[in-house]
């Protein structure tokens, strides 16, 4: 089996290097964009209760909708290829980051912000010097959830033509070629475990000892 896999990876016809690059590219772009948008939206909605209500409930609803259904839903509008796939993955990754940013900000003791205002900080200074450092570990937990979800879903995106290891898996399923399926499943699993390990380490690093214990497991995913 190992030999078969090795033969598969080293066969130039299978383009292992460029497939790997495509997969990593897809994941990385989606994660970075989802985190950036999620944090920005989190800060934005925390300043307006109506926006917050809408964002929280939309995110909650998205958690219940199966990822595969979600990927398909964008298909008629965005077509196939890298762009629709990465867009779908970004939208998928936003809710956990947004929710954790928002709840993290909401749960900061009001007197701390009051004190910051009292010593004459501007709105921007309050965000960068007070709120952001306090909310960081909670955001990190959301980022971890988002990243793992994106990595886990990226192979499925091959069904809508995103490329990457998903191509091996999809092709393998349709041709019932076990080695090819495994050739896709193996690196995907390794990357998922690496991301999980790395992100949980990062989360621990950012958490002041014994201060927060927040990890949401509420995210449904495929």
């Amino acid at each position, binding site marked *: 089996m190992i030999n078969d896999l090795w033969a598969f990876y080293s066969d130039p016809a299978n383009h292992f290097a460029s497939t790997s690059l495509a997969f990593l590219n897809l994941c990385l772009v989606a994660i970075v964009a989802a985190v950036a948008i999620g944090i920005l939206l989190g800060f934005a909605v925390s300043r307006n209760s109506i926006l917050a209500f809408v964002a929280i409930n939309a995110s909650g609803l998205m958690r219940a909708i199966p990822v595969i259904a979600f990927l*398909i839903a964008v298909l008629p509008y965005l077509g196939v290829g890298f762009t629709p796939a990465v867009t779908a993955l970004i939208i998928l990754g936003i809710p956990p980051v947004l929710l954790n940013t928002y709840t993290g900000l909401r749960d900061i003791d009001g007197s701390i912000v009051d004190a910051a205002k009292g010593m004459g900080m501007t709105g921007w200074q309050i965000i960068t010097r007070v709120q952001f450092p306090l909310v960081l570990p909670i955001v990190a937990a959301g980022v971890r959830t988002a990243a*793992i979800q994106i990595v886990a879903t990226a192979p499925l995106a091959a069904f809508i033509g995103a490329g990457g290891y998903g191509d091996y*898996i999809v092709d393998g399923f349709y041709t019932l070629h076990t080695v090819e399926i495994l050739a896709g499943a193996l690196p995907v699993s390794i990357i998922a475990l690496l991301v999980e390990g790395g992100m949980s380490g990062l989360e621990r690093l950012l958490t002041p000892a014994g201060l927060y214990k927040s990890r949401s497991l509420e995210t*449904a995913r495929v």
Partner: protein
Amino acid sequence: MQYLLSPYNYDLSDPESIPNLFFQHLWLVGLTMLISLIIAIPLGLLAARYKGLYTPLIAVADVLYTIPSIAMVAFLIAFTGLQLPTVLIPLILYTQLVLIRNIVAGINNIDPLLLEVGKGMGMNSFQLFLRVRLPLALPTIVAGIRIATVTTIGIASLASLVAQGGLGDLIFKNIANGQLDAVVAGAILLAALAVIVDLLLLGLQVALNRGRNAFAVS
């Protein structure tokens, strides 16, 4: 929409009709949850009782949960082929983390004062479990079951890849030949099923949480 609205697709004699695929999907989800609970409840109760067991158990469940479901199905094909276990095993393994975690949290996060009070009025350990621990833990446990069930509804679509039917058939069998209408119909049904089950279980959760803040457990 055309696909969903066409009466032709509701012919019960056709095994590939919408109702048949729908019930196939429900059956798979139901079977998964049944076996998952049979495994998770004793494991959770043990882990709640013996603290030393909790960390390794959760670590294993966490690793299993991290492996992408499609990858796990792919691994299993090499061993169990295009059979029910190939999709059933990953589905069951996936539910364990959230189920065990919530069972343990539900039982261990009970205010020790209430256990003390129960003991003080002369409850034996069985009465304490039945009248205090279980009713107080149940909302958290049901919250876990809810998340696990909704997740399972989504992942169960992979059953189609190993020829086990379900709503995934509408998606995976039609996506390759570009029948988008059927694909979208599958996605809509899948999403609707997940949302409805989510709301039903949320209702159960709130009902069980009587006397306390109705939405305190999510």
